[in-house]
C-alpha cells in the first residue's frame, strides 16, 4: 500500500476510531476525553483531506480496491476508494463542516447527559459519510448510504424519551427505506446487466446499457438506462428529501440542532445529489430520467419553499429552506448542470450549516425556546450570532458576491439554457423560488433579530399548533424559554467560533471557486456531460469572471425578486404586522393547505401506515387464522377427530358386543359363501 493509500484509509478511519472510543469507553474517558478523541479524529480527517486535495490538484487521482468483501459467480463485491476531484471536494466539505459541528457541540450539548453518546454518533456519521463519498463502487455506496441513515435515525431519536422524536426517527428511517428500495433495484439492474458494481467498469459499459431495453410490462419496452436511472434517483429522492419522499426531513428537526446542521442540511441530505452527479455518465444517456429528475426537483424547490413561509419554529423554517435548496440542486442535475449542482451543494453546506448553527445559538440564548414569536430584537444581545446569521441569510437568498449568489444564479441560468422537457416549468419554479426564499429567510431574520423584544413574557396565546405534533413545543427535553425579565445572552466561544469560521466560506467560497469549478476544467473527466446537453458550455461562454458576474447580478430578475422578498418581509413583519394575519384570513384555504403541508403526512398516516396495518391484520386474522389454521390445519385435525369419534363408537371394549359383531360377520360370510 502506497503512502497516499494509507492516507486515504486514515481519512474515514480516524473518525471511526473516535466514535468507537467515545461510544464504548465514554464513561472511562469522560466528557472531555470523549470530545477530545472525536474532535481529534475529525480534525485528522480534515487535515488529511487538505493534503489529498493538494495531491489531487497535482493530478494524482486514485481508483483501487482496499479489500474484497465477497465474491459470487463473476461478481466481485469490494470495498475500495475512488479519489478524484468530486470526491476530494466532498471530503473537504464533510470533514470541515463536521469539525465545526463537533466543536460547536461542546457548547450546545454541554448539559446533556448523553454527551459522550452524541459525540460518538456524530463521529460515526462522519465515518459513514466519508465512506459514502470515497467509494468506488455501488456496494460501498449503498453501505455508506444506509449507514448515514442509521446514524440519522439514532440522532433524530437522540432524546429517546420524547414521543415526537422517536416517531420522527422511525418515520425518517422508513421513508428513507422506501428510497433505498428503489436504489437497491437500480443497483441490481446495474449488476445484472454489466456484471460489475465498480463505477469505472459500469461507466465503461454505459453505451451498451443505453442500447438495451427491458420489458417491464408485456408489450411496452423501456430503455434499460431510463429504468436504472429512475430507480437510482428514487434512492436520491429518499436521502435528499425530494417530493414526495420529503416528509421525513421537517420532522427530523426533533434531533439536537448540531445534527440538523451537519446531517439534515449540510452533508447527508446532499448524498443524493452527490450520487446523481457521480452517475452522470448514466443519467446523461436518458432524457426521460433527466426530465423526471428535473420536474421532481423543481416541484420541491418551489412548493417546499412556500411551507417555510408559515413556520414559527425557527428550525423548521431552516428545514424547509433546506428542502427547497435541495430542490434547486436536483433541478441542476436535471438540466445536466451537474457541476452547478455540486457547486451549490458546497456553498449551501457552508451557509446552511451556518444558519442552523446560528439558529442553535439563538435557541441556547433563548433557553431552548424555538418559537420565533417569542423572539425579536436579539441583535443587541447576540451580536456574533446576529451578524453571522445575516451573512448566512444573504448568501441563501443569492445576494451578489456571496457564495449562494454564484451557485444559485448558475443553476437558474443553466435551467434557462436547457431544452429538455420540463425545463420551462422548472425555470418558473426556480425563479419564483428566489422570491419565496428571500421572503421566508428575512421573515425569520426580522422576527428573530429585529423589532420588538417579545421574550421573557408569560406565554399565553402562542400555543396554537404549528408543525406536526400538537405537543411539540412542550415536548422538548429541557424546554423552558426565558423567564420574565430574563435577557438572552451571547453563546460561549465554542459556539461562536464555528459560526465565524462557517461565515467566512459562506461569503467568499463562491467568488473564489466558481471559475475553476464551474467554468474551468476541475470536473473534466469526472462529471460527464453529453453533447446533447451543452448547458454548461453555454454558461461558460457568457461568463466573464466572478466580478462581472456579480455586477451583472444586480441587474437581473432574480436579484429584483430577492430584494422584493426582503422588502416585503420587512414591511410585513416590521412595519405592518397586521398584514400577514389579514392575508391568512383572506386566503384561508391556501393557508390551510400550507399549514397541513399539502396533506402529505395525513395521507401517509391514513393510507400507507394505516393501510399496511389493516392489511397485516387482515392477512393475520383472515389468512393465517381463519383460512390456514381454521380450515386447513384445525379442520384436518377436526376431521381426524370426527373419524376417530365414529370409530370409537365401535370400540366399546365390551366383549359381548365384539362377539356379537363377529358372529354377524361369520354369518354374513357364510351366507355369501353358500349363496355365491
Amino acid at each position, binding site marked *: 500500500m502506497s503512502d497516499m493509500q494509507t492516507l486515504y484509509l486514515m481519512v474515514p478511519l480516524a473518525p471511526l476510531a473516535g466514535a468507537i472510543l467515545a461510544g464504548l469507553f465514554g464513561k472511562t474517558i469522560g466528557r472531555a476525553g470523549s470530545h477530545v478523541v472525536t474532535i481529534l479524529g475529525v480534525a485528522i480527517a480534515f487535515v488529511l483531506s487538505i493534503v489529498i486535495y493538494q495531491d489531487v490538484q497535482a493530478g494524482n487521482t486514485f481508483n483501487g480496491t482496499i479489500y474484497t468483501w465477497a465474491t*459470487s*459467480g463473476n461478481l466481485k463485491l469490494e470495498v475500495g476508494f475512488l479519489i478524484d476531484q468530486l470526491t476530494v471536494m466532498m471530503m473537504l466539505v464533510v470533514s470541515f463542516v463536521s469539525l465545526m459541528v463537533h466543536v460547536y457541540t461542546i457548547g450546545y450539548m454541554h448539559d446533556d447527559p448523553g454527551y459522550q453518546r452524541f459525540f460518538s454518533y456524530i463521529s460515526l456519521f462522519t465515518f459513514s459519510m466519508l465512506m459514502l463519498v470515497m467509494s468506488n463502487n455501488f456496494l460501498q455506496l449503498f453501505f455508506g448510504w*444506509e449507514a448515514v441513515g442509521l446514524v440519522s435515525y439514532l440522532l433524530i431519536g437522540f432524546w429517546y424519551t420524547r414521543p415526537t422524536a422517536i416517531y420522527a426517527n422511525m418515520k425518517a428511517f422508513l421513508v428513507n427505506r422506501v428510497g*433505498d428500495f428503489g436504489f*437497491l*433495484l437500480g443497483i441490481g439492474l446495474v449488476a*445484472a446487466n454489466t456484471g460489475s458494481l465498480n463505477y469505472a467498469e459500469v461507466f465503461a459499459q454505459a453505451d451498451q446499457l443505453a442500447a438495451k431495453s427491458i420489458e417491464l410490462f408485456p408489450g411496452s419496452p423501456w430503455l434499460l438506462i431510463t429504468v436504472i436511472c429512475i430507480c437510482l434517483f428514487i434512492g436520491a429522492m429518499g436521502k435528499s428529501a425530494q417530493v414526495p419522499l420529503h416528509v421525513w426531513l421537517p420532522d427530523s428537526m426533533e434531533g439536537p440542532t448540531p445534527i440538523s446542521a451537519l446531517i439534515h442540511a449540510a452533508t447527508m441530505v446532499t448524498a443524493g445529489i452527490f450520487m446523481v452527479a457521480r452517475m452522470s455518465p448514466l443519467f446523461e444517456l436518458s432524457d426521460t430520467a433527466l426530465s423526471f429528475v428535473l420536474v421532481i426537483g423543481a416541484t420541491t424547490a418551489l412548493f417546499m419553499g412556500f411551507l417555510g413561509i408559515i413556520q414559527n419554529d425557527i428550525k423548521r423554517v431552516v428545514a424547509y429552506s433546506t428542502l427547497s435548496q435541495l430542490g434547486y440542486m436536483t433541478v441542476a442535475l436535471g438540466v445536466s448542470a451537474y457541476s452547478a449542482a455540486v457547486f451549490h451543494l458546497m456553498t449551501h453546506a457552508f451557509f446552511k450549516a451556518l444558519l442552523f448553527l446560528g439558529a442553535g445559538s439563538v435557541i441556547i440564548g433563548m433557553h431552548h425556546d424555538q418559537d420565533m414569536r417569542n423572539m425579536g430584537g436579539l441583535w443587541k444581545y447576540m451580536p456574533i450570532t446576529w451578524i453571522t446569521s445575516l451573512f448566512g441569510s444573504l448568501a441563501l437568498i443569492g445576494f451578489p458576491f456571496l457564495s449562494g449568489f454564484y451557485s444559485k444564479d448558475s443553476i437558474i441560468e443553466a435551467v434557462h439554457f436547457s431544452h429538455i422537457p420540463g425545463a420551462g416549468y422548472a425555470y418558473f419554479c426556480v425563479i419564483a423560488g428566489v422570491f419565496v426564499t428571500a421572503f421566508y429567510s428575512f421573515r425569520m431574520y426580522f422576527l428573530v433579530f429585529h423589532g420588538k423584544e417579545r421574550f421573557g413574557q408569560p406565554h399565553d396565546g402562542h400555543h396554537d399548533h404549528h408543525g406536526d405534533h400538537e405537543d411539540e413545543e412542550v415536548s422538548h427535553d429541557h424546554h423552558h424559554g426565558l423567564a420574565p425579565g430574563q435577557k438572552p445572552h451571547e453563546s460561549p466561544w465554542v459556539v461562536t467560533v464555528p459560526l465565524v469560521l462557517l461565515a467566512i466560506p459562506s461569503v467568499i467560497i463562491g467568488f473564489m471557486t466558481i471559475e475553476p469549478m464551474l467554468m474551468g476544467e476541475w470536473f473534466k473527466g469526472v462529471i460527464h456531460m453529453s453533447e446533447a446537453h451543452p448547458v454548461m458550455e453555454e454558461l461558460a461562454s457568457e461568463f466573464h469572471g466572478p466580478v462581472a458576474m456579480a455586477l451583472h447580478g444586480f441587474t437581473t430578475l432574480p436579484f429584483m425578486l430577492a430584494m422584493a422578498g426582503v422588502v416585503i418581509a420587512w414591511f410585513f413583519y416590521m412595519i405592518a404586522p397586521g398584514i400577514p394575519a389579514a392575508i391568512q384570513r383572506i386566503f384561508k384555504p391556501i393557508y390551510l393547505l400550507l399549514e397541513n403541508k399539502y396533506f402529505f403526512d395525513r395521507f401517509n398516516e391514513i393510507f400507507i401506515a394505516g393501510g399496511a396495518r389493516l392489511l*397485516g391484520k387482515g392477512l*393475520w386474522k383472515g389468512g393465517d387464522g381463519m383460512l390456514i389454521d381454521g380450515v386447513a390445519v384445525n379442520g384436518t385435525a377436526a376431521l381426524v377427530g370426527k373419524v376417530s369419534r365414529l370409530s370409537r363408537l365401535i370400540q366399546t371394549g365390551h366383549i359381548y358386543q365384539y362377539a356379537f359383531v363377529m358372529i354377524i360377520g361369520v354369518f354374513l360370510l357364510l351366507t355369501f359363501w353358500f349363496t355365491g
Partner: protein
Amino acid sequence: MTGMPYLSLAIWVPIVGGLVVLATGSDRNAPLARVIALVTAIAGLLVAIPLYQGFDTTTSSMQFVELAPWIPYFNINYYLGVDGISMLFVLLNSFITVIVVIAGWEVIQQRVSQYMAAFLIMSGLMNGIFSALDGILFYVFFEASLIPMYLIIGIWGGPNRVYAAIKFFLYTLLGSLLMLVALIYLFLESGGSFNILDWHKLPLAMGVQVAVFVAFLLSFAVKVPMWPVHTWLPDAHVEAPTGGSVVLAAIALKLGAYGFLRFSLPIAPDASQAMAPLIITLSLIAVVYIGFVALVQTDMKKLVAYSSIAHMGFVTLGFFIFNPLGIEGALVQMISHGFISGAMFLCIGVLYDRVHSRNIADYGGVVNTMPKFAAFFMLFAMANAGLPGTSGFIGEFMVVLGSVQYNFWVAFAAATTLITGAAYTLWMYKRVVFGDVANDHVAELEDIGAREFAFLAVLAICVLAMGLYPKPVTDVLHTSVNELLRHVAVSKL
C-alpha cells in the same frame, strides 16, 4: 487432513455428553449438570472447528468422509461427509449450542439435567442431519431431532405448550412421511442404494421427478417453513422456552432449506426447474404477506417468528432462481439468520426473564433502565432489518441482486422487505425500548449481567464480523454451489 473422524465427534460428543448430563439426575446436582453441559458444548464446538480449518475450498466433493456399514441387509451405511453447503451449518449448530447452554444457565431451575441433555442430544442429531450422506441415516437423524424439541416445548414451555408441541410434532412428522416414501422409492429405483450421492446421478423420468420433488417439498416446506404451512412456527416459538426458540430459529429452520439443496435440486433437477415458479411465488408470498402480518403482532416472540418466516422466504427464493448470487446469498442468509434470530430471541428472553411478559404493550422506555441491553438490541434489530455492515444485509443484498437477473418484478417484490422488515422491527423496538418509562415493571428493570452480556456480545461480534467481511464464509460456498448449479443445469431426462 488427519484421519480424525471429526464429523462423528461433532455428532457423538454432544450426544454422549448429553447422556452423561442426564445421568446426573435430579435438580440437587443441577450445578454439576450445568458444568458438564457447558464443557460438552464447548468440546462439541472445538471438534467442529477443524472442519473449517481443514476444509478444502477447491473441491466440490465430500470431505471428512466416514463410511461404515450399518444395516448391510438393506445396504444402509453410516456414511458421513460435508461439502461447502453443509459444513458451515455443523459449525453454526455447535456454536449455537454453547450459547444456548449459557443462556439457560440460571433461567432454567427445574429439570436442569434433562433440559441441558435435550439440547446437547439435539445438537448432535442436527449435526448428523447436516453430515449424513445416507438416505436412511439422514431420515433417522431428521426424525429423531423432533423428539428433543418436542420435549423442550412440551416440558419447559409456556401455558399453551401442549397444543404448540403437538402442533409442531404432527405438522413436521406428517410432512416427512412422504419423504420416507420417496427415499424408499429412490432405493428401489437405484438398484438398492441409499447413497444420496448415487441418487444425484440417477436418471429419472419427468413424472417421477415431479413426484419425488413434491414428496420432498412437503417435508422440507413444513420445516423451512414456507407459506402456507408455516402456522406451527409462531405457536411453537411463543410457547417454547428461550433456548428452544433460539435453536428452532437458528438451526431447525435451516434443516428444511438444506434439504432442498441436498435432495430436491440435485435428485430432481428438471422438476426443480419446472416447479421453480411455484416455489418462487410461495417465497415471495412469504416475504410480502408475512412482512405485513409481522407488522401487527402484539407479542414480541410472534413478531420475530413471523420475521423468521419472511427471512426464510428469501432463502427459498434464492435457491430457485438458479444463479450463484441467489444460492450463495440464500446460504449466507441462513447462517446470518442463525445469529440474528438467535440473538433476537435471546434479547426477548432477557426481557421475559425479568418481566414475564412478551407483550409489546407491557413495555416502553426500557432504554432508561437497561441502556446496555438497549444497545445490543438495537444492533440486532438493525441486523434483522438488513442494515449493511451487519450479517443480515449480505444475504438479502445478494438474493435481490440475483433475482434482478431472474426477473425484475420478482426482485421488486423481494426488495419490499427493505421497507417491511425495517417497519416491523423498528416499530417494535420503538414501542419496547424508546420513550419514557412506561410502568413500574420497566422502572425496576436491572440491566444485563455479565453472563447475558457475554452471550450477546459474542453474537454481536459474529453479526458485525460477518457483515464487514463475509468473504471467509462465501469462499467456502463457491465450489460446491457452482458444482450444484452445473449439475442442476444438466437434464436427467
